[in-house]
């Protein structure tokens, strides 16, 4: 089999119609066709299938454009010959790496993950620090055997704007009486950012470590709050290791919906009615196929009025954080985020997400765009409505 046969098969399908270009968030931001999926595919087709003297050479210019992509997969929805986007982008990024084109920023990002085992460039021992404010009865990092392992992921472990999501999910798990564990300091990055940079070998190293560690718990289910981590565990690990998982992998929203349907969570309506819309993160929605579960939860939550955004589900617009863009092209990511934040704010004052990256990105973008938009994670909303155990009344203070 030819080395890049899978990519060749996909790029041969392209008819250069440009349907992918119009809705591409980075293509729209840059404007020039070189940033569109159409041109990137044309370049790779000529690189792989072209003949001398017109065969194109791999170049840094191309690599720069290639990484100006959030891997949101919208091109796959628009493609009229149904090219397997975003899968083919991962493969092309790997190809670029193998052809020896190194972008400094990409090397820096992957270097950080390799050294620290997380994307935040923090000591990995700090990974479970978010638990300190979770107020759990039991420390889940001390649990040795569990039915459920909550794989927290780098975003929810290290970034303050996303840590609340991890705390919320841990509280939900505890409230439902589930026996669950957290890997704590032995958890390493899932490898998604490595795959995104085309460094498959490095991603595999992270995978092997995580797979070995998780075995110890004997879990039946692995749940992640981050859609990218979910996708790694569910789709990429079996593919990269050649072995199926011996546990079920779920995103936290799927798990929570199950708990709600089993009446394992007692919810109390908030004091004020909340007007919300929903932002489908690309990795959970378009690329993960999870559209209904978050909406079902939203509809089951008391006191929540949900309005669907016109650009939702498979035509949801990326927040700009995906595909390592936030790390490689932060300004572009912010512009894309601002557009999405503005658009969401026109529908409701609160945007609900199920992805730590989207939450962080939309919060920052709304601030930069100066739009009135609060971004909430769905799990936090559920956790906030959990019936609190009654506190013993405090004795009245004796009058002075």
């Amino acid at each position, binding site marked *: 089999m030819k080395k890049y046969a899978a990519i060749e098969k996909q790029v*041969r*399908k392209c*008819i*250069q*119609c*440009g*349907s992918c*270009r*119009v809705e591409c968030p980075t293509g729209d931001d840059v*404007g*020039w*066709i*070189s940033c569109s999926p*159409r*041109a990137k595919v*044309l*370049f790779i087709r*000529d690189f792989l*299938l*072209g*003949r001398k003297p*017109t*065969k*194109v050479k791999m*170049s840094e*210019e*191309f690599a720069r454009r290639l990484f100006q992509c959030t891997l949101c997969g919208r091109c796959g929805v*628009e493609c*009229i*010959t*149904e090219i397997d986007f975003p899968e083919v982008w991962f493969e092309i990024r790997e190809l670029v790496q193998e052809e020896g084109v190194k972008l400094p920023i990409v090397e820096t990002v992957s270097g950080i993950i390799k050294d620290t085992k997380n994307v935040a460039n923090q000591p990995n021992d700090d990974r479970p620090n978010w638990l300190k404010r979770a107020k759990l009865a039991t420390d889940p990092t001390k649990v040795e055997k569990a039915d459920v392992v909550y794989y927290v992921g780098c975003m929810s472990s290290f970034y303050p704007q996303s840590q609340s999501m991890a705390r919320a999910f841990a509280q939900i798990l505890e409230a439902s009486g589930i026996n669950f564990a957290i890997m704590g300091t032995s958890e390493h990055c899932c490898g998604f950012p490595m795959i995104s940079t085309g460094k498959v070998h490095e991603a595999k190293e992270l995978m092997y470590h995580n797979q070995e560690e998780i075995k110890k718990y004997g879990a039946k289910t692995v749940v992640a709050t981050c859609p990218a981590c979910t996708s790694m565990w569910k789709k990429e690990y079996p593919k990269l290791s050649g072995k199926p998982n011996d546990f079920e992998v779920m995103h936290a929203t799927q798990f929570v919906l199950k708990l709600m349907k089993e009446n394992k969570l007692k919810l109390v309506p908030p004091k004020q009615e909340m007007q919300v819309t929903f932002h489908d993160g690309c990795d959970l929605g378009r690329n993960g196929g999870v559209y209904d579960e978050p909406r079902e939860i939203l509809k089951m939550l008391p006191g929540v009025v949900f309005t669907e955004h*016109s650009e939702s589900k498979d035509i949801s617009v990326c927040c700009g954080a995906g595909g390592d863009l936030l790390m490689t092209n932060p300004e572009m990511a912010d512009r894309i985020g601002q557009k999405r934040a503005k658009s969401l704010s026109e529908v409701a004052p609160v945007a609900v997400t199920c992805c730590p990256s989207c939450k962080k990105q939309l919060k920052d973008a709304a601030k930069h765009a100066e739009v009135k938009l609060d971004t909430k994670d769905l799990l936090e909303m559920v956790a906030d409505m959990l019936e609190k155990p009654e506190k013993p009344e405090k004795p009245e203070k004796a009058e002075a």
Partner: protein
Amino acid sequence: MKRELLDELMGLGVDVVSTPFECQFYGFDVTPLPKETSWVFRGTTPDAVLRPKNTEEVVKIMDFANKHKIPVCPRGGGTSGYYQSVPRSKGIVIETLALNNISELDEKEGIISVSGGVIWSQLDWELKKKGWTLKTYPTSYKSSTVAGWIQTEGLGVGSLAFGSIKKLIKEIEVVLPSGEVVWVPNEGLVETKSGNLKFEDFIKSEGMMGIITSVKLEVRRLPESTATYLLKFKDKNDFALVSSRLAEVSSIFFIEFVNGSYMDLLVQSGYHTPKHSKEEVFAVIRLEGGKSDVGKGEKEIAALLAEHTEIAQLPQEEAEEEYGYRLKYFRIKNAYSSVTPADLSVPLSNLGQYLDKVSRFRFEFAYKGEILTKEQCGLMFFYVLANELSFVRFMSAAPYQMEFILSAMKMGGSPNGGIGLLNTPYVFGLRTQSEREAFIQKKETFDQNWIMNPGKWTDPPFFLRPSIYFSGMKLLEPVCWLVGGIVGRW
């Protein structure tokens, strides 16, 4: 382009790129050509690409181009397929996609004003938010621009109901090659510094007479009612027999049909299709309009089906699914390496006769057709030989394409999609001699430096001149029929 000119261009204050990496992607449209042809089509990569955001910026570019006699090639979505939007003599490409303003809808008149670079799907999206929609749009709806389609006098989805785009335009704003800006109404003459111009001068001009920067376009309210059918015909003759009657059904909006071989390609591409044989023809029919009109149309179709019991009506869900795929007919590309179709139209009254004739060709092909107007039917033929990745196979396919088109022309048809560069050999079937002469004379008057989109049908390369092209093809033909006979099977 010389360095000092590039520097001057950069100083215009318009977004510009000029590196070979950026410019290389503007040397193509949707038609795949073998790399070996690059020695023939030299000069297709521009020296610089500009993205003006408004009419004033377009004027600046035209002034610069005129001053230095630099060729200008306008490009919208780059979807034309006949190299209309690909330069022939380097120079400047003006990409119009940043001319993307959508103004307020005049609900009383049913007219919307848009910039020329607005993409059809984006315009429709905005209209639908207000309860309105397009009357007609191209099948390249997702990526082609309003101004681009106007300049090929587009016929597409909905033109069966509302006619060509030409009828739906009220007025256009054009930046002439001289840099002068004029508003041209659909009817009557407009005075310019170089003489009088009329709407028709731009409608098939393919970017050779100026750049359309704004358009006032008729639109409609979302239809109150719709109905969709998927009908199966025993063969092409059965379909041709009722095609004119179908085109006359009340509130008819769209009719598309494919043959069994096309269905085979869909199956090979991994799609579900109804059971079929190669000879059968499947037609998707869509009615749109007021409740009573659609109801009337439904009754007319019911009567037709009662009269022609050999026509089978397939389930509603399948009909809706097929209609949903109307813009994705190239999804068959999953089945084989390349698609370089013969794209043409024939008079609807000659459809049966034409399909009979081409069915006698000695190689297998699939086709997809669309009834464009009550008199005209568009057809697209796909044949396995056409493969741009192999120069031999690509060249071997050329005479086949020629056969499809010439056969159509003998029956009053013509190639589709305008002339551009690649349809130049068929120019005599698309414009009469007097039309060609009049156009060239007008161009000489209004584009004295001949800067607007040069090198297309008005001054083509030597080998695309009809006499040269057809002589070459005749020489190639015997070899090609032989090659086609051997490898021209799916």
